[in-house]
């Protein structure tokens, strides 16, 4: 296993290099002039040039790129212009919030979509099948910010069931001691039930928003692969052997059917990370998505680069985890590696 992990990591290097290059070029192409921004109002042209020089922006692009990569190698992601904070620190502080939200969203989605997909697969062509398809497709058809706003309007503004959309915790709850950075986990580790409930309540709507968005791909894939597996030879064999229906459905069908679903999770996760940006904006979520959007709008290079790089690493890590999980379930994948 360790060599497998190492190899996978080595394999991702080319795409990470690609990400670094593309991000660099993209951020340099952004409109807006950081030097003018730094110089403040009423600065003279000379002053702006001065600042441009001090920021190293007067250098030709390749030189800037080398500087950037050198800093990157040192683990220095630069400093945000808009918040003035080191990007690495900002991301470290905000990443758990985003990760907790995205993962919970994925979890919510799977908790709904997988049973729906299985239900649909066991009755293909039935009304249940059509209903599942319509419900999940409707979920993915809503702009995620719109879903979020509607949920806030209904569950907070009209009904008052959900807490105010003020981020990870209410104003009078204090965050649990940081261990993982995930409030749910940290509060449990600290044995703080109140904080756990409080952060769960705050998470409920944004996670649901994300979850609704991811229903369709997961349900669709579950249905398709479950259909394929249910009509496969080995499930027929298991039936012919008279195995208990629980064994047939869970040990034989379900585990095999989950394999393609697991592989799509990487794609779904990537989509969720994108959607996360909008959800965070709606729910005032202190994650890296909203951070990145603001930085992008402000042409603030460093946070955008740092964010994208973090995301790429996260994505790579997730895919690695998916590969490992896949390998855990499917011996063929293990042999391949």
């Amino acid at each position: 296993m360790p060599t497998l992990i190492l190899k996978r990591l080595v394999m991702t290097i080319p795409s990470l290099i690609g990400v670094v290059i593309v991000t660099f070029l993209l951020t340099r192409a952004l409109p807006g002039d950081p030097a003018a921004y730094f110089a403040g109002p009423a600065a003279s042209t000379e002053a702006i040039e001065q600042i441009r020089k001090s920021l190293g922006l007067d250098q030709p692009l390749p030189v800037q790129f080398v500087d950037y990569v050198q800093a990157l190698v040192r683990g220095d992601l630069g400093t945000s212009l808009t918040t003035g904070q080191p990007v690495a620190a900002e991301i470290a502080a905000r990443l758990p919030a985003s990760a907790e939200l995205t993962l919970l969203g994925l979890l919510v989605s799977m908790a709904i979509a997988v049973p729906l997909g299985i239900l649909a697969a066991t009755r293909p062509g039935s009304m249940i099948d059509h209903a599942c398809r319509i419900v999940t497709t409707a979920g993915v058809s809503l702009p995620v910010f719109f879903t979020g706003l509607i949920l806030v309007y209904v569950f907070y503004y009209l009904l008052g069931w959900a807490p105010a959309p003020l981020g990870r915790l209410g104003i009078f709850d204090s965050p649990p001691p940081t261990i993982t950075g995930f409030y749910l986990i940290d509060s449990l580790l600290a044995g703080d039930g109140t904080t756990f409930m409080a952060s769960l309540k705050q998470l409920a709507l944004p996670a649901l928003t994300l979850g609704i968005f991811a229903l369709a791909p997961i349900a669709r894939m579950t249905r398709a692969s479950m259909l394929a597996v249910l009509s496969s030879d080995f499930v027929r064999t298991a039936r012919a052997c008279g195995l208990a229906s629980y064994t047939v459905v869970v040990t034989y069908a379900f585990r095999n059917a989950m394999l393609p679903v697991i592989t799509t999770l990487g794609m779904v996760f990537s989509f969720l990370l994108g959607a996360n940006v909008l959800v965070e904006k709606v729910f005032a979520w202190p994650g890296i998505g909203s951070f990145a959007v603001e930085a992008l709008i402000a042409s603030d290079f460093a946070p955008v680069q740092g964010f994208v790089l973090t995301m790429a690493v996260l994505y790579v890590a997730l895919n690695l985890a998916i590969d490992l999980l896949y390998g855990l379930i499917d011996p063929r994948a293990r042999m391949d590696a």
Partner: protein
Amino acid sequence: MTAVPALVVEDLAVEFRTRSGTVRALERVSFAVPKGETLAIVGESGSGKSVTAYAVMGILDPAGRITSGRAMLGGLDLLAASADQVAAVRGREIAMIFQNPRTALNPIRTVGQQIADVLIRHANVPRREAPGRAVELLRDVGITDPARRAKAYPFEMSGGMCQRVMIAIALAAKPSVLIADEPTTGLDVTTQAVIMDLIGDLARDIGMATIFITHDLALAAQRADRIVVMHAGHVVENATTAELFARPRHPYTAELIAATPDAAASLAALASIPGSLPDLRRLDLPPCRYAERCPRRLGDCDAALPAAPAIPEHVVACWNPLS
């Protein structure tokens, strides 16, 4: 031939509801297999061989529906029993092996586990002892180094080995009836012979009745005590092997024998069967589904088929049989 039948199928009829009409896949299928004997069901593709087996096993596609018939396994009518009852005897009293053994095994479970699953369910083997017993079973089906192989996955084994594993699974609970559905299709001739020997030997050891489904007349001739010839969902002839080849009575059987390359001295001597299977969705299917291809067709052929009892010596579903 006086032995007690292990399985009796009577008047079995199966329909498939498809979008383009109802396929009357089986009609009036009757046969019996005595304990310790081997019955071969022979026919071309689409003749309903496998559907018969699936119907008896209760593993038909959701689109399939049994419209009539009985399948008596001991005192239990498999077709009328509840799903739970059937599931309880499947794998215990009546077992089945399939073609394409590599896909018929769960790809992500070790073969040992898969055998153990059946042992735990049907052979009253305690969970802890199951792996050990699985290894024994693998040894019984002639797998070398069974302890190591038990931990292997199907994709790590050859087709022949997979079929041995399938046999081990099917015979784990020592059933009284084994249905082997084209068990050697896709295997090499040499492997085919070995597997067929193995099935024969094991069946003899436990006194099991075997239903052997094949399209290969020569293989059936070599392995079966009795042969059921099917055509388009009908049993056209049912006789002991020797009798059938010595005196085929149904025109289709005779043609089939004549078309088998093994029988002919030269290519020119091979007979071909004119026409093709009728479309089983047709509403105007003739009572004898061979009638439209049959050179010996008579006026009588438009009447209902002659009745075919389950355990006769030599049954022919024909108004104008060869003598």
